[in-house]
């Protein structure tokens, strides 16, 4: 009889909260066989990474393995045994490739050290390392070995880590969000590579991800986790096509689709329970946010029940969710633009060029942004897409006035920024505001929410504490937060709340244009939906124009009427979002579009590597 490579049965991990114990993983069951891929899907706090820690035998000391069994190749996996297997029989691929490699050692030093541990003979190590690097598609492996991590791109670093993971001939690979930190195009390549090597060695893979759509295309089976419970598990395609648990359904709905009609994204009320909330939740942990809950849900945990071939869910109201929730089809976007109005912001041949001193003393130039014309009208929703390094953040900073372009000019409401008077500059600042990407860095941790939201009033004369309170109450309502949040500090808020405070601060100056730089990319999908709906509402109710910078095409399609595709510092394609996405002209746009996992679970994804590379080569030649 053959065993699965890894099997969890009834695994329970508990943490202490005061005098009570709370299960962070409750009755987790799953198995992954030889050459199979299991996707663990869920948002942050669902317990995905905890499973990786259990397998590695590296549970934090405040947590306890309370019940259940972990079987590896049919044998009980103790944490001491697991630590001995790490790198050899069980390997990990981490989330942040750049921080997983030591910056002061060369790739060669790190790789050879790893090979030594794995047990490759000294004489063969160099040869072996080169062979492995060639296998993951890195050209000139000998050169790569002598490089330092910062000299490689994120994708190359991830390839190195994959080569290292596979160099011990492991039976099990655990990949924890291996592509989250990478660009979409690189993401496809890495997924493709992982699949390819996995097939070759028949390795079992556990792919931890927050992206249900990607998991459905890449994995054989998926398990959807919510607050430490497996809420749904089954064949990957089936789970994406017919999600039966209300949470999986919400997860699928929260990512806007790239084709067809746009539906208003449903938003789950409230948040995933934290450690303290879990103490209170005796029954189904999703119940407080569930639209189909009944009295029973709150008192006891439903067992996993079959709803189809190998498809199990943990829910009393199986598969009834779709009938109960109606989604609104969104109106056509183009109607919100005020016809004939003057332009809000114009760029005339604006460009950004950096001078680099080379080692030989000569000067070299780097064009972060090539001369660009762009105009934004009042009430317009414009998207900018591109990979990292394409110049989209430079564009955002120029538009916001954080940096001056080295060439060309920027006009706000018809007045050029250069040579504007102090008063005019003041007016421009009020017209154009920016929402920063990372709310953790963008909110001063020492200010309260009220003080943050009304920061713009601080420099105006004659503003009393009452004025600020009134304004804060108005803003808190506009971004949909409860007024009792006003006295909190950012560290006491969730990710979505922080991002709303971030937006409210920009709104305080009553701007006509918001520049939003990747403001939804760091958020969980359900929170992302909430922020996107907020931006749409602000646009509709206050007529604020938004320039949304993003690498996520589905986000752009959901929000924007017009899109600019950027590649290596220039705009390679622009137009109405639907036109560009349904009929892309430039090869790079085509590459971007084919990099997004489609909704249709039966579509072929990831695309064949050859076609993608051919398109990239074409993009390179056409730019």
């Amino acid at each position, binding site marked *: 009889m053959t065993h699965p490579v890894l099997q969890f049965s009834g695994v329970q991990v508990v943490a202490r909260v005061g005098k009570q114990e709370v299960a962070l993983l409750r009755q987790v069951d799953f198995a992954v066989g030889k050459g199979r891929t299991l996707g663990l899907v869920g948002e942050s706090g669902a317990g995905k990474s905890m499973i990786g820690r259990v397998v590695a035998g590296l549970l934090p000391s405040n947590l306890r393995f309370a019940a259940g069994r972990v079987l590896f190749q049919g044998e009980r996996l103790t944490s001491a045994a697991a630590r001995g297997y790490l790198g050899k029989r069980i390997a990990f691929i981490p989330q942040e490739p750049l921080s997983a490699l030591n910056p002061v050692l060369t790739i060669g030093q790190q790789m050879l050290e790893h090979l030594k541990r794995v047990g490759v003979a000294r004489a063969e190590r160099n040869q072996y390392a080169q062979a492995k690097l060639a296998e993951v598609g890195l050209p000139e492996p000998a050169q790569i070995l002598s490089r330092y991590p910062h000299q490689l791109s994120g994708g190359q670093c991830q390839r190195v880590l994959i080569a290292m993971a596979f160099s011990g001939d492991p039976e099990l690979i655990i990949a924890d969000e291996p592509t989250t930190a990478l660009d979409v195009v690189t993401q496809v390549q890495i997924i493709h590579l992982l699949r390819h090597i996995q097939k070759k060695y028949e390795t079992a893979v556990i792919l931890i991800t927050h992206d249900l759509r990607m998991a459905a295309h890449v994995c054989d089976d998926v398990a959807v986790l919510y607050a430490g419970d497996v809420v749904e598990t089954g064949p990957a395609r089936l789970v994406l096509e017919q999600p039966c648990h209300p949470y999986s359904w919400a997860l699928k709905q929260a990512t806007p689709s790239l084709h067809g009609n746009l539906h208003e994204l449903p938003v789950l009320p409230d948040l995933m329970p934290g450690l303290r909330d879990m103490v209170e939740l005796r029954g189904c942990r999703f119940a407080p946010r569930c639209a189909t809950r009944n009295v029973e849900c709150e008192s006891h945990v439903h067992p996993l029940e079959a709803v189809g071939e190998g498809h199990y869910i943990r829910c009393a109201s199986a598969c009834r969710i779709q009938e109960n929730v109606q989604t609104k089809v969104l109106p056509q976007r183009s109607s919100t633009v005020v016809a004939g109005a003057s332009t809000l912001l114009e760029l005339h041949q604006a460009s950004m060029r950096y001078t680099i001193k080379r080692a030989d003393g000569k000067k070299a130039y780097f064009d972060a942004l090539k001369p660009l014309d762009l105009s934004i009208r009042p009430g317009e929703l414009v998207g900018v897409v591109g990979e990292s390094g394409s110049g989209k953040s430079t564009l955002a900073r120029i538009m916001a006035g954080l940096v001056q372009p080295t060439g060309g000019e920027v006009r706000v409401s018809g007045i050029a920024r250069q040579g504007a008077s102090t008063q005019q500059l003041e007016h421009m600042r009020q017209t154009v505001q920016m929402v920063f990407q990372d709310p953790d*860095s*963008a909110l001063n*941790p020492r200010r309260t929410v009220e003080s943050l939201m009304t920061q713009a009033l*601080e*420099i105006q004369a004659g503003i009393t504490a009452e004025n600020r309170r009134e304004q804060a109450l108005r803003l808190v309502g506009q971004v949909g937060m409860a007024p009792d949040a006003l006295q909190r500090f950012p*560290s*006491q808020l969730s990710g979505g709340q922080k991002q709303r405070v971030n937006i409210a601060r920009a709104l305080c100056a009553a701007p006509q244009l918001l520049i939003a730089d990747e403001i939804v990319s760091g958020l969980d999908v359900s929170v992302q939906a909430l922020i996107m709906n907020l931006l749409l509402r602000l646009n509709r109710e206050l007529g604020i124009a938004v320039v949304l910078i993003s690498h996520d095409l589905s986000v752009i399609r959901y929000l924007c009427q017009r899109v600019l595709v950027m590649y290596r510092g220039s705009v390679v394609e622009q137009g109405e979002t639907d036109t560009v996405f349904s009929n892309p002209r430039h090869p790079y746009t085509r590459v971007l579009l084919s990099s997004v996992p489609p909704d249709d679970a039966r579509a072929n994804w990831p695309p064949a590597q050859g076609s993608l590379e051919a398109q990239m080569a074409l993009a390179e030649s056409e730019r």
Partner: protein
Amino acid sequence: MTTKVGSGPSWRGRLRRAVGHPKVAIGGVMVLFFVFVAIFAPWLAPNNPNAQDLMATLLPPAWDAGGMAQFPLGTDSLGRCVLSRLIYGSRIALLVAVLAATGAMVFGSVLAVLAGYLRGRFDTTMGFLVGLWLSVPPVVFSMLLMVGLGTGVRNVILAVVLVDWTRFYRVVRAEVLVAREREYVQAARLLGFSHWRTMTREILPGVLPLILTLFSLQMGVAIIVEAILSFVGLSVPSDVVAWGVMLADGRDQIYQAGWTLLAPIGGIIFAVLAFNLLSDGLRVTLDPRLQKRS
């Protein structure tokens, strides 16, 4: 340095929480005791600290055989009451600790925030100057300063400030460099904040816990430096009672009368420990970044 962190009610809440922290509680009680002794020295001391009783020199503490109840901790080589001198010595220690640490803090932090925020030529010049400053051994430097300035409490304070401001400068500047890259600093500029306002409202509150920690450490260091200077006879005139003077006086009788040394050493340890505990606790409790989500 009076930047308001947060607004009204939360301050009181944080203060209440701070007092509940064991380090703050213990350190605070110790500091209060230290301050109390320094202020009420004339009422607490059993004898005049400078009154000599040549008939009763080098008496052991009162509980020892041959001790006298009049001198609870014994007497020194001139027959002066060790306990009274210990109590009066805390006045100089407290004065030097508070004034020297404040001076070094203000001087070092202001320059650090300016250099770290503005960068450019000012920062480069300051970096060079601080490098030069630090290349002189601190003890030798302070002794040279004392020789140049002359003895006296005021000059001790000045010497400590001039030697130790670099400690604040280097550490605070490094923190300011991190803080200025935060997006909230850019956001404040976009909202129209001036450089000055950005520095005082956005940067300074962020480095304040660090400054507080350094401040209390510096109070301890100032007490030690004052003791060292008194020990080599370069601090206060000999009629002023200071712990360093007591150490210097007791050194000759270290074998016969160890208590004359142990008393000032105990005083120094107590004061330095009190400041360190308090600052460490305050740093943890006043920093909202360390607050948990409720």
